[in-house]
């Protein structure tokens, strides 16, 4: 991910049609979405949309301002890659004839992925990790022949800032 993409964490009201409103806004303003992940938060009234936007064509400021005009959008935070933790999940069914199966399994193990299902000449594997790592894995696994591949798009939260405790920790 270069400087042309930014991650926005968008807290929205958990109401019908909110995703459509966000998607429609991007479409009509000509903003480009690179990836988008949406799910409810711990507070059931709200969902979080993690959207990776292409800021080459439109300044990020204009995108966030327009997004914020949507009545159901409660909060928008920009997540700097350096100041956030990002994760993405990849599922992949890959060709694994007996002749190469060992190599595929080894590759999955190196990347700390998991084998989810085993067929006669295919494997379904999963990999969770930083999007860059997932990119690398995808590039390597591709050489064996992909049957199906699905990535979730990235999700992210701000990195915790470690400060010395201001008060003595209470020991129970």
């Amino acid at each position, binding site marked *: 991910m270069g400087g042309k993409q930014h991650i926005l964490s968008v807290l929205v009201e958990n109401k*019908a*049609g909110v995703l459509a409103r966000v998607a*429609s*806004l991007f479409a009509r303003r000509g903003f480009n979405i690179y990836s988008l992940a949406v799910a409810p938060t711990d507070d059931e009234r709200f969902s979080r949309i993690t959207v990776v936007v292409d800021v080459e064509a439109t300044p990020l400021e*204009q995108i966030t301002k327009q997004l914020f005009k949507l*009545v159901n959008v409660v909060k928008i935070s920009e997540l700097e890659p350096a100041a956030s933790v990002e994760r993405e999940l990849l599922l992949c069914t890959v060709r694994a004839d007996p002749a190469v199966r060992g190599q595929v399994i080894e590759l999955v193990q190196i990347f700390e992925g998991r084998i989810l299902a085993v067929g006669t000449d295919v494997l379904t594997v999963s990999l969770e990790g930083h999007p860059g790592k997932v990119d690398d894995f995808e590039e390597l696994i591709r050489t064996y022949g992909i049957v199906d591949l699905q990535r979730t798009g990235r999700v992210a939260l701000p990195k915790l800032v470690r400060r010395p405790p201001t008060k003595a920790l209470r020991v129970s």
Partner: protein
Amino acid sequence: MKLTGAQALIKSLEMEGVEVMFGLPGGAILPVYDPIIDSSIRHVLVRHEQGAGHMAEGYAHVTGRPGVAMVTSGPAATNIVTPLADAYMDSIPLVVITGQVPYSSIGSDAFQEADTTGITMSVTKHNWLVTKAADIPEIVKEAFHIASTGRPGPVLIDVPKDVSNQMMDWYWPESVDLPGYKPSSKGHPRMIKEAARYLLEARRPVIYAGGGILKARAAETLRELAELTGIHVVTTLMARGAFPDDHPLCLGMPGMHGNYTAVTAMQEADLLVALGSRFDDRVTGKVDGFAPEAKIVHVDIDPAELGKVRRADVPIVGDCRLVIEELVQAVRALMSGGVQPPDRSPWDATIRGWQERYPLAYEPSAEGNALKPQMVLEHLRDSTPDDTIVVSGVGQHQMWASQYWRFNHPYTWVNSGGLGTMGFAVPAAIGAKVGRPDRMVWAVDGDGCFQMTAQELVTATAERIPIKVAILNNAYLGMVRQWQEMFYDERYSEVYLSPDLPDYVKWAEAMGCVGLRAETPEDIQPVIDKANAINDRPVVIDFRTDSQEKVYPMVPAGQSNDAIVVPPFQEGRHGEGGH
């Protein structure tokens, strides 16, 4: 108290203080039309749903209160999409209620089903599909709040028929709970101080007043600021009347068909104070070449407008009235601290020079010839009260009306600026007259526009709404004709309409109006006098105008404002200095 959803809806509108609504019933909205019989709300029955939307817009324009329209599902809902888009572009508060097929049938391609909330998502500030009757009071309260606060705009409530029939326990919410909707109104104090400093330092400042001034009820405050600082004011198409045309500091309308002085003063300015304006392409011309030396102070209640087109040196998010009031205070404080503006007499002299050399002008028609549209407007202007409300459609007649009328009061000019909706004038004039029955309301329309929505004059006659319509009938889609003449080698493609077909006088009479006609300059004044004397029904005047007449000045599309074209008889005055 148990009510049906339909009863709760009408009661909620009454709670919001709605006095009038414009609409047309149909299958899915039938339940809601029943309680209207017993309601205090006046319902104006339109002849086409687009008319209902534009009437609600006209009402909102002149009263500042949300206009309300109600129509049924499917084709009725799609017919009102144009007014929604129009209101969205021009920030007009509207609450539109549409019927919907029963909730259980949604998605089944039921009779008169359309995905109304989906279709209108991009042309409303917000919309709702009601899923249970108990939500109706809360949604109506939210709808009026959202439509009328922050940057105003249209909202839509889609009500399925079974929800209208459902029983609910009546309640009226005390307040709204919208965690994602908190429009800011007060500007940032440090930015306002900064702006005040800019205003007092500039040598060639211009106030660029937009429609936001009217939305914020800030016309008086704007005048105070202009007079305090001595800065000239341009009023955009959406802001005509926000600053009096007769005021010595008023430069009139800028933009593609703005007057030479307004356009050029902005172009040469070293400071533009944009107040509730949005650097629309019709004002800026080619953005790269727009006001190249100007610093920008930009005040808008919509944060997304700041920096959207032109970077602001001093961006201020806030309500125009509140911000300008603070700005006046800040300027006063600086002045009492001894800060004075630089000598601006050279700039004032330059402006006067432009005004003298390039006034708005046209060549009058000879006796017996076809009418000059500008001349018609001048007669109309001089024969009507100063607070007459003028409503226009879109095209040449709109530009001439904006140019040649003298707007000295806010809320006297109603038009479709952003969307450019032909057919706006007649229904919007009806809505304006309903909102301000004490005022004379003149629709200035083109023959092309008139034919799009004229049937609403039947509504006007039936509902006793005595508007007056001046058709500037040049037998052409005039603005398109002008572009084909100037930019397509006079190859006229599909723009001729005929002056006699339809016969506007007979058509007006068929709709219960008085129909009049003026064919020569000598006819103008008598027909206007006759029309002004009629107060019991609508009047339509067919003014036969010169087809050749073009709107000047003009900045050709896509060009810099420096390329402004003046009328042929003013050409060659550039060399006389000052520019």
